[in-house]
């Protein structure tokens, strides 16, 4: 059996489908978080409550844009992996990882800054705000671990298994990045 030639295969690999179904559960989870956010907002006389400022718009939007941009190197990595170019795939993932890690570090800082201004125990707004952002950051964190593991695997070259792994990881990041736009949309919606 050749290492990774895919000319014979027409359907998406099992690993890709597995990631697709996993993404479906996570998308449902986030859909439920968004639903809860707006449900609680509809019942609040003031949102955010008096004493809490609505979040600033510029920095979260820019950061979300930066994260979405990392979709490009991930897609590049997937295409390179399918074409059998291990080094190109590794470079693309490494680039994505650096930017994503920078994004994550900045978000951790902003998260801490927010906590100094209001906490989850201040009320429903704080509670759902931190669940929304925390869940998203957790998914980014898992993505970072995936990137590192992929780089370790690809250091020894490409196999059919590893090509599927890169495709699955790209699917995951595409989902997380699209989600970033929705999360920041909900986060900033009080400004509308």
């Amino acid at each position, binding site marked *: 059996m050749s290492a990774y030639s895919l000319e014979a295969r027409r359907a998406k690999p099992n690993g890709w489908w597995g990631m697709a179904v996993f993404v479906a559960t996570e998308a449902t989870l986030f859909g439920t978080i968004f639903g809860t956010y707006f449900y609680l907002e*509809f*019942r609040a*006389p003031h949102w955010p409550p008096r004493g809490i400022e609505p979040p600033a718009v510029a920095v979260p939007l820019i950061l979300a844009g930066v994260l979405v941009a990392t979709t490009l190197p991930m897609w590049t990595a997937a295409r390179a992996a399918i074409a059998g170019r291990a080094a190109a795939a590794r470079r693309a993932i490494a680039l994505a990882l650096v930017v994503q890690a920078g994004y994550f570090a900045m978000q951790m800082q902003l998260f801490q800054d927010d906590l100094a201004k209001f906490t989850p125990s201040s009320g429903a707004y704080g509670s759902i705000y931190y669940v929304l952002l925390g869940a998203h950051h957790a998914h980014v964190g898992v993505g970072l671990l995936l990137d590192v593991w992929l780089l370790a695997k690809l250091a020894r070259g490409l196999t059919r298994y590893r090509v599927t792994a890169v495709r699955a990881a790209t699917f995951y990041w595409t989902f997380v990045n699209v989600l970033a736009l929705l999360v920041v949309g909900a986060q900033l919606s009080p400004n509308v």
Partner: protein
Amino acid sequence: MRTSRLELLQWVGLLGAALVWTAQLVIGYGVADSRCTLAGQRWGLDLRTWEITLMVVAAALVLIAEGAAVAVFRATRDRDHNDPPPAGRHRFFSSAAVVGNVLFLVIVLLSGLGAVAHTACRQA
């Protein structure tokens, strides 16, 4: 009819009504919830306009899906659902979708009419 066109119509006929009803439920419930909660009224949505428009649009789209299902059903009238794909699969999905879409149409109409038939926001 060309196979690729049948393929597209098959999926529209099978999945269209389900997606349309989902949209009507989510949007219709959201509009009703905003109208009937204190803070949601900030959004200022008129219940009757939204619910009736939603029902009419949803019903129209379900009818289109039903049309697609019927078209595939008629195009495969000399086939059996056990036949090799794609024709057998087209027959299979369309014969089920023809019935399913009627069900969704009734739900869409009942929901829309129910939402406007009662005094708005009266406690159940």
